[in-house]
């Protein structure tokens, strides 16, 4: 399943949402493990973003808000319009959004400005959906992960997050249980989840 392979089959709202959710759920329950998303949306105008779009279509609707970080680059504006039109989600600022779409690595201050929820309602913390370079070929930080969902520790090369991003993430998640949950998706549909409980140490 490659983003450049054409023609892709259209995203099927019922079956593809369920299949995509199961993969995301498994990835969220096992932070740092690389999973492959089973669906894409060929309508997605964001270059390399068809698999990311499948996750967006699975989770977003009129009940939630989303934001687009300008660094998403070429096609960002079309992507915002496409998400609003296909999901019904409401486009808001980064500091208000339930779901934030960005390209990794992030510019300084983006993670710090995202919603982290309150102590009483930490689930109101935002989910960051990060489009990253190919997990296999991209440059990354060698990292060791610990936390719930990880037996002992798990090592992986984290693509799409700079050392500064990791420090900002640590700061955003410092006041447990408030925090931000990350989904990293590459153009080929491979995905890694980093919920707020995952401790990341550079190796």
């Amino acid at each position, binding site marked *: 399943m490659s983003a450049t392979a054409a023609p892709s089959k259209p995203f099927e*709202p*019922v*079956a593809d*949402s*369920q*299949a995509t*959710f*199961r993969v*995301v*759920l*498994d990835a*969220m*329950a*096992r932070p740092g493990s690389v999973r492959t998303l089973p669906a894409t949306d060929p309508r997605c105008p964001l270059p390399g973003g068809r698999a990311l779009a499948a996750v967006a279509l*699975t*989770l*977003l*609707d009129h*009940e*939630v808000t989303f934001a687009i970080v300008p660094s998403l680059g070429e096609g960002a504006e079309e992507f915002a319009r496409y998400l609003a039109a296909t999901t019904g989600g409401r486009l808001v600022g980064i500091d208000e959004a339930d779901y934030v779409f960005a390209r990794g690595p992030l510019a300084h201050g983006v993670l710090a400005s995202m919603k982290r929820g*309150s*102590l*009483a*309602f*930490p*689930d109101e*913390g935002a*989910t960051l959906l990060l489009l990253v370079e190919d997990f296999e070929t991209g440059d990354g930080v060698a990292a060791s992960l610990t936390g*719930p*969902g*990880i*037996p002992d520790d798990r090592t992986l090369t984290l693509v799409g997050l700079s050392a500064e991003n990791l420090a900002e993430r640590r700061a955003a998640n410092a006041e*447990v*249980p408030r925090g931000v*949950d990350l989904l990293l998706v590459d153009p080929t549909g491979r995905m890694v989840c980093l*919920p*707020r*409980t995952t401790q990341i140490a550079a190796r």
Partner: protein
Amino acid sequence: MVIDQQRDPQIPRSAFRAPRLSALAGAPEAYNYAFLDEVSKREIRRALLKAVAIPGYQVPFGAREMPIARGWGSGGLQVTLATLGPGDTLKVIDQGTDAGVNAVNIRRLVERTAPGVATTYSTAEATIIQSRHRFPEESLRADQIMVLQVPLPEPLRMVEPRESVTRQLHAEADYTRVWVHLYEDVITNGEISRASGYPVMVNGRYIMSPSPIPRWDIDKLHQSASLTLLGAGREKRIYAVPPHTNVVPLDFEDYPFRVEDFSGKRCARCGATDTYLDEIIVNGGGRLYACSDTAHCDERVSAERETRNAE
């Protein structure tokens, strides 16, 4: 005046014929895949992901009306329906057995509304196991998801009736009143007497109700290979325990947590001495013990029969 309604010619016979429930419900094809509409599924899925990201924290969600009454597994059912898809194999347990009325009804609903989902009694064959008040005896694998039905998700309710206060207590991890409650229990009863729904500490942060499973099953949540999802429909809460997560029952150094004691007892059917046993009162007032996990018991019985036949 007395009217014999059954015989009165002016009252049509059809007035006494109760409509079949299936006719009222309409054809299964009239429903969306897995009964729930997509907006509901999406909300439940969003809540599930946050629940997994914050182990033991109760995520509020808008529990939908289900074709079973609230308090009868509607929360677990909504979690199951939002999760399963073609290729899944579902096992449903009602207090240890697959043949309980609650389990049968939930399984039938899935069979009718989710084509492509197989159902089974076998724990090993299942990819999703929805259960009321029991874990299977066999350890679960990484590719299996456990869904527990939860009647009362709030472990602090026993010490505080107000939701606004229990939420704040969770926010501040202020669990002193639970500890005092357990201490009082020890003083009054000589031990922590809680039989089911024993409070546990998840990932060192949240006290959680594991649903009304017996103490016997608590250890199955600790550092499990499988993901556990918990749904409370009436109370509108979803929470989760990811795999490889610490789940520790609350206890005191001098009053350690202990499980039910079945020493000297064995299953009357399969002879097991290492399973959770149900006590059955028989005629004459005697007591009989049998495996609570009937599928596990059946497998042992048929394995034994095969061995005997082979001899």
